């Protein structure tokens, strides 16, 4: 008999969370800690969603999405998780850029960017200050007409090198382009590029383990291999979910799955206003990724001066479409030194990441697909050679992931690495106005994406649900009704 992954699950919970990405886990944790009964359902056999890792023989562990996050993670982990997690967050101090326009190493904070822009790029300090202040001061209520490209042209006209320095990391971090609203850049920039890049010491596996422990400690019922087929709605309210053929009821449901699959696959468009359906249909998915994972043979090592994160490119110009092309000219290398996992065997790993389009990989016949993967590996090793000489002889294991791999493991439509574009946020937030008690938490709108964005969005939604459940229990009308 197949194992029943829903053994002893109850018929009703206060809240069901679909998906154990960082957003889903954080919402579940905050609500569990507040005393609600919470069921967390994950279709995969591991928790973490895109925050994931895999192991290969010989003690090699590869992190998929642990390349760097903003310092804000420390505060969010301390508050919404625990001190043990927060205390393991450490800064990456060697961020390198190497491309035909410039080569440099930076600590990646406002002070150091200012130094570089003034000394190496010859920009007037007053212009640099004005740019940083403008980026920092942007908020939601601002004019959303200006694009990222226009913002740069205002401060650094004709300076493609400066734009490259200030933009390339953000393109990698969240798939944004020069055509996106300037505010997305402003917010991500002030979170990310003004105070350095951080990482979780211990690796993604340790982080997810610590989170799982705390979820259990807070009484959250956590289930893996539970693929939610349907979200049940009736009379304008959410009723529960159907998972592995079983119906489970709840007063509130949070979907951490992709926004569009939540609306179109799990709920079904007949349950929404036609206007909302059109809005949701217009939400653009973000791009996907390719990665190549390389592990050094035991005993081999890479000098720390090679850098922690290396934005490398052979493209003469900086164009966001070039960053997506299958003819890859730009890669981000993450170097993982043994200090990354102090508790484990000393190993060096290198992960090369590029942004990619799902369409470019989706319909390839199997043979071509395998050949393209091999080509991706070979060209990556070629590119790595100048930073890690003789790398082919020194590498024990290498393999590649494509947009198809990401789609397969996370069920994200089109293997989207960073959720949806800007307009996704409004649709995500409007979900409970359509169906009372139904929420979405997960990468949307660029701002709410990445590890920190997903965690914070989980908290925002947990707050909404706490408010809803409290007003229901005290007999007051739910807020959505009060407002309208």
């Amino acid at each position: 008999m197949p194992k029943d992954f829903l053994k002893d699950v109850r018929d009703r919970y206060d809240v069901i969370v679909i998906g154990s990405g960082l957003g889903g886990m954080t919402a579940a944790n905050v609500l569990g800690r507040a005393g609600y009964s919470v069921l967390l359902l994950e279709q995969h056999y591991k928790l973490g969603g895109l925050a994931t890792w895999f192991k290969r023989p010989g003690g090699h562990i590869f992190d998929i999405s642990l390349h760097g996050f903003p310092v804000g993670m420390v505060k969010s982990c301390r508050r919404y998780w625990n001190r043990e997690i927060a205390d393991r967050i450490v800064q990456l101090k060697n961020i390198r850029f190497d491309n035909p326009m410039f080569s440099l190493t930076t600590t990646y904070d406002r002070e150091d960017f200012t130094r570089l822009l003034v000394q190496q790029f010859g920009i007037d300090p007053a212009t640099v200050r004005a740019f940083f202040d403008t980026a920092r001061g942007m908020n939601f209520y601002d004019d959303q007409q200006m694009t990222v490209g226009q913002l740069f042209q205002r401060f650094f006209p004709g300076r493609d090198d400066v734009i490259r320095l200030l933009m390339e990391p953000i393109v990698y971090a969240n798939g944004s382009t020069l055509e996106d609203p300037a505010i997305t850049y402003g917010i991500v920039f002030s979170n990310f590029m003004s105070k350095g890049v951080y990482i979780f010491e211990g690796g993604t596996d340790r982080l997810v383990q610590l989170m799982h422990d705390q979820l259990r400690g807070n009484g959250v019922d956590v289930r893996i291999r539970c693929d939610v087929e349907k979200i049940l709605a009736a009379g304008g309210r959410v009723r529960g979910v159907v998972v592995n053929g079983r119906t489970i009821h709840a007063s509130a449901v949070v979907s951490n799955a992709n926004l569009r699959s939540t609306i179109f696959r799990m709920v079904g468009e007949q349950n929404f206003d036609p206007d909302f359906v059109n809005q949701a249909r217009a939400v653009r998915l973000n791009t996907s990724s390719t990665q190549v994972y390389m592990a050094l043979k035991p005993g081999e090592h890479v000098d720390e001066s090679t850098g922690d994160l290396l934005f490398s490119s052979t493209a003469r110009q900086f164009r966001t479409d070039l960053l997506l092309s299958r003819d890859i000219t730009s890669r981000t290398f993450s170097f993982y030194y043994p200090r990354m996992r102090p508790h484990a065997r000393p190993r060096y790993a290198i992960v090369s990441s590029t942004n990619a389009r799902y369409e470019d990989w989706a319909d390839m016949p199997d043979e071509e697909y395998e050949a393209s993967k091999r080509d991706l590996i070979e060209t990556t090793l070629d590119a790595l050679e100048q930073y890690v000489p003789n790398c082919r002889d020194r590498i024990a294991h290498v393999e590649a992931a494509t947009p198809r791999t990401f789609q397969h493991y996370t069920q994200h439509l089109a293997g989207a690495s960073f959720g949806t574009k800007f307009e996704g946020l409004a649709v995500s937030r409007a979900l409970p106005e359509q169906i009372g008690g139904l929420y979405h938490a997960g990468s949307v709108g660029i701002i709410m994406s990445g590890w920190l964005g997903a965690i914070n969005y989980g908290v925002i939604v947990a707050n909404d649900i706490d408010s809803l459940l409290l007003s229901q229990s005290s007999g007051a009308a739910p807020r959505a009704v009060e407002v309208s």
Partner: protein
Amino acid sequence: MTPAEIRGQVLDILENIAPDEDLDSLQDDVSFREQLEMDSMDFLDIVMELRKRHRIQIPEEDYGQLASMASTVEYLTPLMKDI
């Protein structure tokens, strides 16, 4: 609660949210943002704490009322007078 007691409650919440800040010199009429390193998640935490401790519901459109200590206390006074 009296406005003075409400102020004490808010201060207590702020001490948890911003443990590294010196709150003794907080000026009530100046916005929190100008005096403390606070971001939108910090304001959300104030909202969540007020709900947890006193079952007070603050709708999103009123978050702006929490800009300074003076405006927060003024906003909360009618909501907390019977607590």
